[in-house]
């Protein structure tokens, strides 16, 4: 997730100076170096924090789980935060209004970033919190993942060996398939992991750009089997979440790379969004847009295994959403996979003359098959793509379970505990 931006409003991540004990755990934990401190306070940089929540549970005090709806232009700077003795109150609706923020857009900023703590504190009825079902452990049969071989302070270099548009050419939202080669540098990755790319240059306040994360789209033995290379699926960001034109720093840099260019890479990251290895496991993949990257990686690895005769009936099922068919990355190659290998379901939300369809609608249509998979302990569910899809997808799973007479609390807890439901949304 990126710091949520809706109509100039952000949900700003803040630390409560009255509760924080300055233990440095958050700073040591944050994967993108969004946290810094002086002798007085620990603070979060609004322009760097991507709301990944990695810092939330390691913080021993809970002081880091604070969020304020703020007009983007008035987001608290770190200099301001460093002087705080207590957390400022939420801006009142009048103050927000005065800053040009309507009630509706303030609420829009509220919803996605609402954290468990707020949900628990504010709700009289329990609020559905999809994130709570996401596993933090890998499936039992997953291969061993390496992480942080190249931490943010010491990136390594990779060479671009391929870069082409994998959506239909000529659309604004073009998505590139980029292949990076590591030569002899060890950079082992598994399907489901991500890497960070450090764009060159500095940001508006003169600091080196922070790394942006991208999921690996190639299987473990390389985009080109037997080579030390990985592929990424990168969407050019040309408008922000409000639809206003912007030029995303890193995505444009990556999409414009030429073969032979070198890039700075950190990572790999992720040790739980990993695929099961045992030959009878089923994989259900639910994604939108570039969330297809890890799904492509898993599908391709299964395809390679199947070709070599190493598969015994594990099912693959894919739910893939985009605005239009033209925007779907890998649409062509996906079409040519055998039907008995993968069960593909496309959802388009903006096809002219047709009703909007989202991945969750498709999931409800396929409830019978999904219910059977939910009952089977060998099934694994993966959700990747835009943050806004996560809740809908998990709710759809819950409804499918309920309709099939399953107790969702039991099923959901089991999926989490056994590393069989993985959520990665951004």
């Amino acid at each position: 997730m990126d710091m949520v931006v809706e109509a100039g409003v952000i949900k700003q991540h803040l630390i409560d100076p009255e509760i924080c004990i300055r233990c440095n755990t958050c700073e040591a934990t944050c994967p993108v170096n969004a946290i810094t401190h002086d002798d007085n306070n620990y603070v979060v940089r609004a322009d760097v924090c991507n709301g990944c929540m990695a810092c939330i549970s390691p913080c021993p005090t809970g002081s880091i789980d604070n969020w304020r709806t703020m007009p983007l232009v008035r987001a608290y700077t770190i200099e301001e935060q460093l002087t705080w003795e207590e957390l400022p109150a939420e801006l009142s609706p009048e103050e927000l209004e005065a800053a040009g923020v309507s009630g509706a857009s303030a609420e829009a900023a509220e919803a996605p970033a609402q954290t468990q703590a707020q949900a628990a504190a504010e709700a009289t009825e329990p609020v559905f919190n999809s994130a709570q079902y996401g596993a933090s452990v890998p499936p039992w049969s997953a291969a061993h993942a390496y992480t942080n071989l190249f931490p943010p302070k010491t990136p390594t270099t990779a060479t671009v060996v391929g870069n082409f548009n994998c959506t239909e050419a000529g659309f604004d939202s073009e998505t590139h398939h980029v292949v990076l080669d590591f030569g002899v540098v060890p950079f082992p990755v598994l399907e489901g992991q991500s890497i960070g790319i450090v764009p060159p240059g500095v940001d508006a306040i003169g600091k080196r750009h922070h790394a942006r994360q991208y999921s690996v789209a190639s299987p473990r033995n390389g985009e080109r089997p037997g080579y030390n290379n990985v592929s990424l699926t990168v969407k050019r960001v040309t408008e922000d979440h409000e639809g206003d034109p912007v030029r995303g720093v890193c995505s444009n840099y990556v999409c414009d790379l030429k073969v032979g260019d070198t890039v700075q890479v950190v990572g790999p990251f992720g040790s739980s969004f990993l695929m099961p290895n045992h030959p009878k496991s089923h994989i259900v993949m639910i994604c939108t847009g570039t969330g297809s990257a890890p799904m492509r990686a898993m599908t391709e690895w299964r395809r390679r295994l199947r070709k070599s005769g190493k598969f015994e009936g594990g099912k693959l099922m894919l739910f893939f959403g985009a605005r239009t068919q033209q925007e779907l990355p890998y649409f062509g190659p996906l079409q040519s996979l055998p039907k008995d290998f993968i069960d593909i379901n496309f959802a388009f939300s903006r096809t002219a003359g047709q009703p909007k369809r989202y991945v969750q609608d498709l999931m409800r249509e396929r409830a019978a098959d999904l219910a059977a998979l939910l009952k089977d302990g060998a099934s694994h569910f993966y959700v990747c793509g835009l943050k806004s899809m996560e809740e809908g997808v998990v709710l759809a799973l819950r409804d499918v379970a309920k309709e099939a007479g399953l107790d969702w609390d039991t099923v959901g807890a089991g999926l989490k505990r056994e590393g069989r439901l993985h959520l990665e949304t951004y």
Partner: protein
Amino acid sequence: MSTINYSEKIPNNVNLGEDRTLQRALEGWQPNFINWWDDVGPEGSTNHDVYLRTAVSVDPQGWAQFGHVKMRDYRWGIFLNPGDANREVHFGDHKGEKVWQDVPGEHRANLRRIIVTQGDTEPASVEQQRHLGLTAPSMYDLRNLFQINVEEGRHLWAMVYLLQKHFGRDGREEADALLQRTSGDANNPRILGAFNEKTPDWLAFFMFTYFTDRDGKFQLAALAESAFDPLARTTKFMLTEEAHHMFVGESGVSRVIARTAQVMNELKTDDAQKIRAAGCIDLGTIQRYLNFHYSVTIDLFGADQSSNAAIFYSSGLKGRYEEGKRDDDHVLKGQTYKVLEVKEGQLVEKDVPMLNALNEVLRDDFIKDSVSGVGRWNKVLEKAGIPTRLSVPHKAFNRQIGALAGIKMSPEGRVVSEVEWAAKRDEWLPSSEDFAFVASLMGRVIEPGKFAGWIAPPVMGINRQPVDFEYVRFG
């Protein structure tokens, strides 16, 4: 190397299964550890299911997993932070060389000593805190005590792993000895003084976790810079756990102060006797406890001038706190640092070679960190409109180690005569009467959401659970 293998007898992320000799050595040590836990671990806790935080991997998603577990079944094991293949020694005479994966022969004795000393503190604090569960002021606090206990236990594992993996037979003997010494034992005490002091009551426990576990933070942070990479990675991970201990101390004292302030305002008094009569700990007593724990803890950093400290630094064994963030040459030859001594009845500063003063440097970093936390306690008083302020005593107050050892000094830093010291001692340090009073308040409160009268409830629960959550299920 991030996910921890729980299928083995000893959870680990160091491929223990591939090193049969080490595995056997650790498996031999494990029953002794469990016996030690059963003998001197938290009293009367065997059947409780405690809401504990356990690491399942060493990345942020994995290292803070919560659930009800019996403490004996806690996943004690060996967890190292991920390594960095390119890491270089970044201070001392070996600066710029590749970090060591094995112990260099010439540093063997020193490294062993450092690890044994660190390792010895971990079981010691479990022993010191053994009886506290019987007088916990709430179920929430009981859980926090137990969380600290299991993590100290795991930190012992962390050091034992290093000893057994890298120091052969000597290491195995040292590992055994860690379970044989006992805190406060007249014949076989723990190595460092503060770890033989009693932790008689919960105010002492909070002060201990605030000050003495903070010493742990600074020692671990200095070791996390080490050129001996396994030590650096081990202590890095320990630091993430240590944070909780300091939290318990800082918030614990803060809650005691909040409750006292509340009662002072209700009764409109600052009379210690009236406050005591109302079942709260008066601010004077809190200040005396603070003076005691602070002064005992700053002794833990060692003598103000030490050739060992210089050797440890120059040879790359132990760096400074946040070594990487300092912008000097990281070799420190020819530089000086100011330390205190007493000359003609006056405290004076003198310059000594920086390398020899590194214990003092670390002590001063600790002091700065402690003082700012005391400032946060004062905010509680400020908010309650109470004019009294707490403060740390002078660095030379009540010291037993280094050039200031034995010098009689008031908390403000005035050298005093033996006579004055004897007369004022009970104003400056907790008296037997203070201890008796605080002890009289200690009764067990374990109903979810209920708190003893001398302490305020916490601002929020653990892991976003409500304050009245059932943190401990009594079996």
